[in-house]
């Protein structure tokens, strides 16, 4: 980046300093004295501080990074292209390169697009400035602070993360949570039912028998309020009597109903025969249930799965799969204001008569936008887009702050990887320099494009 900047900057400075125009190669034929003067003349003297500055602070570090990338961690051993080979074979770096690719493809386009839409829309409302100030506000917060905010916003726990709180609220209005999430059987009477979910008894019961089904895994304070002391079922002629209760009295014996152990009301209980549900009932306040209308035969008792459905807790936003989109979304939130400000300024500069002329000619608003506004804004949109692109290539702090440690390798980007490798803990500045060089190479085409455009504009 810096090396490409140099000629341009030096070029500009030369002009500014007012060197006489002319090609150095076409100097006077006698040569030596004027050549010497041209080299060390007043112009060069004036240029010296700037050149020194550029050399020391831009050119030297850039060149040194390239040189350093050919040495090992300690910096004493020349290793050739080893660091580069390692870079492109290391899973983590490859993930970082892939993620940076996603960032570059998605984020700048998204922000430029949103910026354009908001800029055009806010131009037409009465409180345009107020809206723009509002949308620009995130820019006033540092990326680091925004990162901390978004880490909280996307927290998995709905009690903390606002996104999951909203998602859970919406979900629960359509599907009410179950009564006994996380409950599970104690002892051998019940086993998880792999085909229909819930739990099924491990043996069959005939009408006239009783089933005592102990469950655990629920805090005694979490059973519904109407629950009362569980009671042993009484065998009755042609029904299966049973009880489901929370078998968790302190120091109690497993599988035995004791004082203080409550029944589990409103549990859906089915009788199964050959895999078919033949009877169904709901347990009472003391946990007792009666399965009636059964022919003689053997039945399994089944506790339906929807008694135990875990409550919906939202999505794991900060997990390995969603982490990059989530971080991009926070970057979009921050940077859209930047795009709006620039594009709005560009919109204001568009000659009104061009728009008016189009409207007079009978163009619809959409046509005016497509055929007049966008082409006129074109160069500006490009500047915004390219600036954002460079911004995205060096994205670091957002990823560092938002991604929890366990998914940081999945969320990694080149700039972050570079820091981790060379300073974070790795201490391998050779490999780190190789990553910097990669970043530099990626920025070069964008810079080249930028410079060419500057030249074109000037001519």
């Amino acid at each position, binding site marked *: 980046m810096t090396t490409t900047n140099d000629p341009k900057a030096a070029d500009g400075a030369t002009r500014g300093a007012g060197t006489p125009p002319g090609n150095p190669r076409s100097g006077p034929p006698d040569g030596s004295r004027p050549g010497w003067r041209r080299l060390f003349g007043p112009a060069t003297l004036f240029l010296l501080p700037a050149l020194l500055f550029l050399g020391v602070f831009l050119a030297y570090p850039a060149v040194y990074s390239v040189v350093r990338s050919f040495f090992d961690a300690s910096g004493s051993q020349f290793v050739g292209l080893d660091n580069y080979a390692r870079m492109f074979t290391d899973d983590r770096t490859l993930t970082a390169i892939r993620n940076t690719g996603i960032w570059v493809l998605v984020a700048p386009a998204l922000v430029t697009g949103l910026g354009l839409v908001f800029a055009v829309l806010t131009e037409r409302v009465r409180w345009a400035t107020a809206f723009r100030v509002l949308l620009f506000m995130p820019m006033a917060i540092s990326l680091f602070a925004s990162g901390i905010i978004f880490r909280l916003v996307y927290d998995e726990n709905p009690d903390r993360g606002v996104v999951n709180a909203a998602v859970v609220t919406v979900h629960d209005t359509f599907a009410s949570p179950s009564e006994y999430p996380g409950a*599970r059987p104690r002892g051998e009477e019940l086993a998880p039912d792999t085909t229909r979910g819930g739990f099924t008894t491990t043996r069959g019961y005939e009408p006239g028998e009783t089933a005592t089904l102990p469950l655990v*895994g629920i805090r005694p304070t979490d059973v519904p309020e109407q629950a009362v002391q569980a009671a042993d079922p009484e065998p009755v002629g042609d029904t299966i009597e049973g009880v489901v209760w929370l078998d968790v009295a302190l120091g109690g014996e497993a599988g035995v109903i004791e004082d203080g152990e409550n029944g589990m009301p409103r549990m859906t209980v089915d009788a199964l025969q050959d895999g078919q549900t033949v009877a169904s009932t709901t347990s009472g306040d003391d946990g007792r249930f009666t399965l009636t209308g059964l022919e003689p035969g053997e039945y399994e008792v089944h506790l339906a799965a929807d008694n135990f459905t875990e409550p919906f807790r939202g999505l794991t936003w900060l997990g390995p799969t969603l982490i990059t989109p989530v971080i991009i979304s926070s970057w979009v939130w921050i940077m859209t204001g930047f795009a709006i400000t620039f594009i709005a300024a560009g919109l204001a500069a568009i000659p009104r008569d061009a728009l008016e002329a189009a409207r007079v000619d009978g163009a619809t608003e959409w046509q005016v936008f497509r055929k007049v506004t966008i082409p006129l804004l074109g160069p500006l949109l490009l500047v915004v887009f390219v600036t954002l692109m460079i911004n995205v290539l060096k994205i670091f702090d957002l990823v560092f702050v938002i991604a929890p440690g366990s998914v940081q*390798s999945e969320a990694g980007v080149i700039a972050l990887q570079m820091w981790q490798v060379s300073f974070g*803990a*790795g201490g391998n500045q050779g490999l780190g320099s190789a990553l910097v060089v990669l970043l530099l190479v990626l920025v070069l085409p964008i810079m080249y494009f930028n410079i060419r455009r500057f030249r074109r504009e000037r001519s």
Partner: protein
Amino acid sequence: MSARTTLHHSRLLGGHRLLSGAAAALCLTLAATACGDGDSAASGADLDGQSLEIVGPWAGDEQKAFEEVLALFEEQTGATVSYSGAGDDLQTVLQTRIQGGDEPDVALIPQAGLIEHFADEGVLVPLSDEVVETLDQNMAGAWADIGSVDETPYGVYLKVANKSLVWYNDELFAETGAVPPETWEEFVELSENLADVGISPLSVAGADGWVLTDWFENVYLQTAGPEMYDQLAAHEIPWTDPSVEVALETLAEVWAEEQLMLGGGSGSLQTDFPTSVVNVYSDDPDAAMVVGADFIGGVVTASTNAAVGETARVFPFPSTGGEGDAVVVAGDAAVAMSDREATMELLRFLATDEAALEWAAIGGFVSPNKNLTADDYADPVLGQVAEQIVLAGDSVRFDLSDLQPAAFGATVGDGMWQTLQDFLSDPSDVEGTMERLEAEATRAYGN
């Protein structure tokens, strides 16, 4: 840059050689005074007008307490000691000052690996015989070993951390009639019982890799014993050793049981360290226990309404049978960077009962000093924690991940941290985890 370092290095060594002659003479005089006293506590050295500089990681309350300890030294000897805290940037600060030829007299170094690094660079001065003698009187031999590089003693451990603890919520324990377990089997059984009554037994901060390495180190130290621990720490045995398999399988007894951890494996991986503590000690606690070091007490005080010693209590990390009282520790070692009588006298003072007693009475401090009892500590929980370290005697071992190259032992999303995080999300893959650990360790040691 490399050229500059080498240049500086040789200059430093040269200076060193020059000094050592004078130092030998000094040491003799020092020996005379110290021996004349014949007392490990009171110092007879007269260091009037001398000034010493210490750089360390402590700030805030720790700095205040340490300065009171130093005031005691100043009172006894007449020397002036100035302490400056470098916080988390300690390594950078020290390295810069060493390169500039302006090293402090004493540095407090939190990583054992860093002592080795500085010792290799030749900027550390070995402890004098008097200091070593005082160390032997007051601490288990393991501490001198931890502070040594290639059998040369360099470090005096003043303030240490006990990483073999389980913090529990006493209210939840009382509610369910649970009692602190002693063995691993009891620990797993207790956890299952807690899960039965609908309380998540453990809150595991899986998002922070070092929390998981602490789990592993404790289990490994218990299942494999201190000698194997030393070998693994030095990578003398590979990570594919059967002892590692035993440790991972033991870990999986808890990590593979979703109901034993708040949020299961995936929920744990989203939980960071402070949150894991708050989960146990908030007003409406979600979990009953959190495994971790004594400094969890600080988080409890800062972020929750629970009181350490009342709701927040500790029991030692459960033993698996063989090595009942082994303890994983960490700590800050004081090392000498200047070869002066006053420097050694200060290090000797830091190893005494006096210095430890002074800070213990202020609080927020755990000493490896075996002459201190639990009653000497202002905070009863820390007294208990310190007692556990003293009882462990020579079975204390320094945090294994801190002894590894940083690329393996201390990198977010890499090495041991990431591998154990992956193991937490899939505890059935013991074989693959061992192979990955070995591959990453080999790579890190190869550098």
